[in-house]
């Protein structure tokens, strides 16, 4: 075809290598140092699990981990069904009020996190609700809805109405058509949405920081406080564990998505 290699641009490979190293060097350093024996965080003193052992002896970390998990689980269990129902409701042939409701669902993504945080804090202060794990759960359930909604909506948009119509023609009632046609095809989208909302909830710092009361700190809030006090082998270990969980989730959701495509 052509004399020179068309689809290559000198200079982009080094930049890509630079960016991938930039993305991974901090992570690799963190993981390596979490297995450092001894109290010093940056000087290598041999392989050890001290940091991990210390985690089990720290009731605050255990409590924060429990809180994070409870909040993310309940927020996911609230947000995913709400988002699924909303997606199904908006899965219609053209209708009028769609765009207003669709933009309402996208609203938490539009408003800066810090603004959502202060607004939520003011809401609880206005209605006189004391800050606790409950207020954190309410806040998370709200902002997780769009994160659950968009993957479900995308999946739903790929399902053809013709199939549902065909089922109805073959004397399925609307429930049978839903359970046998729509639901199995929608499920991967729901799983992806649920995973996304779980990670989003586990990851949130700023909103939780504003609306968590005493004893309701989540892992990000705990890490924030710990960072302010200085770094320690224990925090290396906690961070590595959280990192591991995130990677596990991304991989699972990636393979769920791929299986759905087949």
């Amino acid at each position: 075809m052509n004399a020179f290699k068309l689809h290559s641009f000198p200079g982009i490979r080094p930049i890509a290598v630079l960016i991938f190293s930039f993305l991974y060097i901090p992570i690799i350093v963190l993981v390596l140092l979490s297995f450092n024996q001894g109290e010093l965080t940056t000087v290598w003193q041999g392989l050890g699990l001290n940091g991990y052992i210390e985690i089990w002896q720290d009731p605050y970390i255990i409590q924060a981990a429990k809180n994070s998990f409870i909040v993310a689980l309940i927020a996911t269990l609230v947000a995913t069904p709400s988002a699924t129902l909303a997606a199904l409701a908006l899965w219609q042939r053209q209708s009028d009020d769609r765009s207003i409701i669709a933009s309402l669902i996208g609203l938490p993504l539009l408003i800066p996190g810090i603004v959502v945080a202060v607004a939520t804090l003011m809401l609880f202060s206005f209605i006189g609700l004391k800050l606790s794990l409950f207020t954190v759960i309410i806040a998370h359930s709200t902002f997780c809805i769009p994160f659950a909604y968009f993957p479900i909506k995308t999946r739903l948009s790929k399902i053809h109405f013709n199939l549902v119509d065909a089922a109805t023609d073959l004397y399925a009632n609307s429930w049978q058509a839903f359970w046998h046609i729509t639901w199995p095809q929608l499920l991967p989208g729901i799983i992806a949405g649920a995973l996304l909302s779980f990670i989003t909830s586990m990851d949130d710092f700023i909103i939780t920081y504003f609306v968590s009361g005493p004893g309701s700190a989540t892992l990000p809030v705990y890490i924030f406080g710990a960072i302010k006090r200085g770094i320690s082998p224990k925090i290396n270990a906690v961070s590595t564990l959280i990192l591991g969980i995130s990677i596990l989730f991304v991989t699972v959701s990636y393979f769920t998505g791929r299986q759905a495509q087949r």
Partner: protein
Amino acid sequence: MNIWSSLTINRRRQILLSPAILFLLGGIVFPMLIVAIVSISRTADYGDILWGKLSANAYIQFLFEQDLDERKIFNLDYIFVFLRSLKLALLTTFGCLILGFPTALFIALQPVRRRNTLLILVSIPFWANLLVRLYAWIILLRDGGGIEQFLHWLHLKKDELGLMYTSTATAIGLLYAFIPFMILPIYASLEKIDWRLVDAACDLGANRWQALRRIITPLALPGIISGCTLVFVPTLGVYVIPDILGGSKSLMIGNLIHLQYTSAHNWPFGAALSFVLLGLTLLGMLMCRFCSKRTGKMYECV
């Protein structure tokens, strides 16, 4: 089941939508109304909100300060905080674009299997907890940290670098946190390009840089615009990254808002600042939407 079938389609939709709508109205729309009201409310001496006592004090405080004679003097301090945030957001967007575009192009030019692997590699840090990623950077940036040790080992530098708690550290953190938001949308538009167009351009005598400038870049423009939006808009209100890596030296909008709710205990001012930030965010989004409409038009012309 029978009751459900007897309902009109509109009624069914309303029922299906109600949980999500209730949460969003109660958890976002109503709180935003409270912010609006607080921003125009007066406070009592201890900082409590006096509901129903309206005042524009918070917005006036943004532009003016009172001197001892109670005269109002034009005050640029808060404007500077906003300008600083704006500058940082622009720099971050530019940095992400300059480094993200070549990376996205590199990924798009790989064989399909490797492309997928590289995409997962880009998205993993983006999914990992932000606090954890920032913590990893502290380990590298702080005095006696990874970067310093590395440079000492290379005998390049002997003294302390003092990287931590500077705007350089904030910039590194922002670039790290937001570069996937640039790479992924640009890759998405590059992936759709019909590379035969590039071949055709080259057959007609274009060299690869001309093809990059006149074929690839215009076709990738939707991705570039959405990437810039995804980086610019959240960077404006960012709180955690400057707080952790930048120390308290340079105040950003997000940190200024947080201050009003903690030490300053001035909720109306915090609410007013939130609204100004929200306005700026919406403006940024509208501008990007305007740009993408214009590029859309451009395609129609071509």
